[in-house]
């Protein structure tokens, strides 16, 4: 079944418009619904390289996850560890176009890194050093004065790879395009793609 699909894609892919540049690079940006390795997906910025009218594709994307994700306050002088969230895919596909409309389908493999931001409260004693020696840092807190707690924040790397399938319909002119894409990349995702497609050579 898969072999037949690949054979079909090869046949149709090889028939890409001969007047078109064989290699294109696209900058893609758009809102998304779904999740990336458990993180709600909101937006994606990506770059796609396609060969022979989209027959071979490779893309890298930076998924933007929920802005309501855990927000942590850092102590002065500390900077929050930034979790890495990237996704790469390599795929074969076929594009049918009529006038300014097109339809693409295909499949391949995807790799992603989507780090977890972990936090833990700290209950152990904090000491501060003054000219008089060490003393408890919380000695100034009372029932009438709120003392903030202390915690730790770190990233836990999370990697995954798996099959990738996509289908996209859209409208385009020479450079710009707008597509609606449904894809399976660890989970079902859907979104709009605003695409700037430029010929490489």
């Amino acid at each position: 079944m898969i072999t037949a699909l690949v054979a079909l894609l090869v046949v149709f892919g090889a028939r890409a418009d001969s007047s078109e540049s064989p290699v294109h690079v696209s900058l893609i940006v758009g809102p998304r619904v779904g999740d990336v390795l458990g993180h709600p997906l909101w937006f994606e910025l990506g770059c796609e390289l396609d060969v022979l009218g989209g027959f071979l594709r490779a893309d890298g994307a930076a998924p933007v996850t929920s802005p309501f994700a855990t927000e942590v306050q850092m102590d002065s002088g500390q900077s929050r560890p930034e979790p890495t969230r990237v996704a790469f895919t390599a795929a074969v596909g076929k594009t049918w176009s009529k006038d300014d409309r097109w339809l693409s389908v295909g499949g391949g493999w995807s790799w992603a890194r989507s780090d977890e931001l972990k936090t833990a409260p700290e209950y152990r004693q904090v000491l501060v050093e003054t000219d008089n020696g060490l003393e408890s840092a919380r000695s100034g807190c009372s029932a009438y004065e709120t003392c903030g707690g202390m915690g730790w924040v770190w990233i836990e790397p999370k990697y995954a790879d798996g099959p990738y399938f996509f289908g996209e319909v859209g409208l385009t002119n020479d450079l710009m395009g707008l597509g609606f894409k449904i894809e399976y990349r660890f989970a079902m995702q859907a979104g709009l793609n605003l695409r700037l497609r430029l010929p490489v050579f």
Partner: protein
Amino acid sequence: MSGPFRFRALAIHSAFVSAVLVSGCDTTLHYAGLPPANAVLAVREVRIDTVYDTLDRRGVRLSIESKWAIDAGEFGVRPYRYGIVLGIPSDWSHPKSKWTPVPMSRRIANAVDSLRDTLWCVADTCHWPSPTVHVMADLGDEHFLSVATAWIMSNGRAYP
């Protein structure tokens, strides 16, 4: 607007506002990194004796020897310090004891090691409530997280 709908809208709005306020009121300040693991610390020896200074004034000499063990992996990640907290009397009628030298923290050079501290109290009467020794992870800005605590002894009080 019907009554039940208005009530539901008000409830949802209140829940949202409460959630925002609660999340906004979190005063926890975070440090970057994994929490440091606990270390092991034991007081090996405590000696208290009477000494005289060059002006022939009597004083109390406190000598403490402690031994610690910090996980080798943790030790490579962040600096650690060792320090003594002799405590301040909560009773205003007891004067705060002045120790010489002032018990300041010191950088730990080895994950497993021991150290002896000798302090001299110059007050007429020396008090050291809740005396403890600590192995501490350095948080920066003169702040330290105690990852191991050992009691030196029960509350101390000595008259020279």
